[in-house]
């Protein structure tokens, strides 16, 4: 993997004791000296700083809102300036090509897409939209946790006025920060796009604050699992519809049956039908009994012996705030919600109770 791409904060991560690993073609910090468990807990208690510069940042002209709307089951046209919305690129079969964030700003639309899908997404958009501009000269950081506002407001006092899913462009130290009040941890917090040449200085100032600790991708994954958030490639795929994935809320009202702009996105026939008549599968939270983690790919059965395979675990591991293994899976909708399921781990069927998501209740500033 000699062609791994490096990101602006590589030197800072190494100075902070990061263990770097290849991820989606980039060299990324998987953990720092404190380790995944401590980093996870710190984010839930104080504030964690994540480097997510590998994610794709894309600008579209405001005039592209209708064209973008034709690719996602989202109300883009009705998105107000200064606000952000979660979206999904769907395919004609009603599966998911990627999930993303869409923000409307004074002069453009700003999108953040997954690292592993950014080339795909940009090509997908360019086939339908004029003026798709990939931002390649900015780092992307996330500051997450109950003290994220306290920390960031020391540098940018106006962030205290932002509400969940607000976006703003604000000056700091001669550069413009693009800030959204959002994240991928189930905590209050911010995602901050910063010019690449100012990224190390900005991150360093935050890391010097007592409440801020650097957090790697390992804890990012355990935090998002506890928050019940899907990961593209695991819980969301081209074969799983948004309805099966439990993301019905991401199909905005105007795009639903009876809405002002009903349908009109790829796979709308299947997705709207599943909303009316139910889907073949459903995403479920699981609490494995005992301490053995059940990870992605573990087959799920409806009985301790015999029975039939009724689904598969899509994401799973240990939930540090839960203090036990947690998992999410996709299962046959016909399976009763109150029965114990069995995950087959190393040839043994181990019981796991179905549970509501999330495992850890979010605490957003609405």
């Amino acid at each position, binding site marked *: 993997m000699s062609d791994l791409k490096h990101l602006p904060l590589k030197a800072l991560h190494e100075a902070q004791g990061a263990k770097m690993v290849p991820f989606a073609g980039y060299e990324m910090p998987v*953990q720092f000296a404190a*380790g995944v468990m401590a980093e996870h807990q710190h984010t839930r208690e104080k504030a964690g700083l994540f480097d997510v510069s590998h994610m794709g940042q894309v600008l579209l002209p405001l005039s592209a809102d209708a064209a973008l709307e034709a690719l996602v089951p989202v109300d883009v046209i009705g998105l107000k300036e200064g606000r952000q919305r979660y979206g999904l690129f769907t395919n004609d079969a009603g599966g998911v090509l990627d999930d993303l964030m869409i923000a409307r700003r004074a002069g453009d639309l700003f999108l953040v897409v997954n690292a592993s899908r950014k080339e795909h997404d940009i090509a997908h958009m360019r086939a339908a939209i004029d003026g798709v501009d990939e931002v390649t000269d900015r780092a992307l950081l996330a500051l997450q946790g109950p003290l994220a506002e306290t920390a960031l407001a020391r540098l940018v006092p106006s962030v205290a006025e932002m509400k969940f899913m607000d976006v703003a462009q604000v000056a700091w130290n001669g550069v413009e920060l693009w800030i959204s009040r959002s994240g991928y941890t189930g905590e209050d917090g911010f995602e901050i796009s910063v010019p690449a040449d100012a990224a190390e200085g900005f991150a360093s100032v935050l890391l010097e604050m007592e409440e801020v600790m650097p957090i790697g991708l390992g804890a990012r994954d355990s935090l998002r699992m506890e928050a019940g958030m899907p990961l593209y490639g695991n819980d969301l795929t081209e074969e799983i519809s948004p309805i099966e994935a439990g993301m019905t809320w991401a199909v905005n009202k105007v795009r639903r049956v009876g809405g002002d702009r009903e349908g009109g996105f790829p796979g709308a026939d299947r997705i709207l039908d599943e909303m009316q008549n139910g889907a073949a599968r459903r995403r479920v939270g699981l609490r494995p009994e005992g301490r*053995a*983690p059940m990870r992605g790919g573990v087959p799920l059965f409806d009985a301790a012996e015999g029975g039939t395979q009724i689904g598969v675990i899509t994401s799973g591991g*240990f939930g540090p705030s839960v203090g036990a293994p947690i998992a999410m899976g996709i299962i046959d909708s016909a399976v009763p919600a109150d029965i114990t399921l069995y995950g087959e781990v190393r040839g043994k069927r181990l019981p796991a109770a179905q549970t509501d998501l999330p495992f850890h209740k979010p605490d957003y500033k609405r």
Partner: protein
Amino acid sequence: MKFTEEHEWLRADGDIVTVGITEHAATALGDVVFVELPEAGTQVAKDDDIVVIESVKAASDIMAPLDGEIVEVNDALADTPGMVNDDPMGEAWFFKIKATDLSQMDEYMDEDAYKEMID
């Protein structure tokens, strides 16, 4: 004390050999959240996978370093797997094996050779 390339340590007391993983291995694994041990009385052959260890990051197997019989396992690890990170070379031993052929120990490294390997 002897060391394997798989980052196990072995401490012999007569023909009873206590086995655990090294500090280096525990650090590389990260926070350990689950350990599955064999049952006492199990006959094992060298290189059989007999322990499963899961960290927050991944699952790994630990092999029997010798032929013999598992005579005791460290049940405390089931309830407090984090011991593996806190004291891998001491309290967090995994199992004791009654070796069939102690000369199998000879192929393993001494501490200096192990330290050289991990540097």
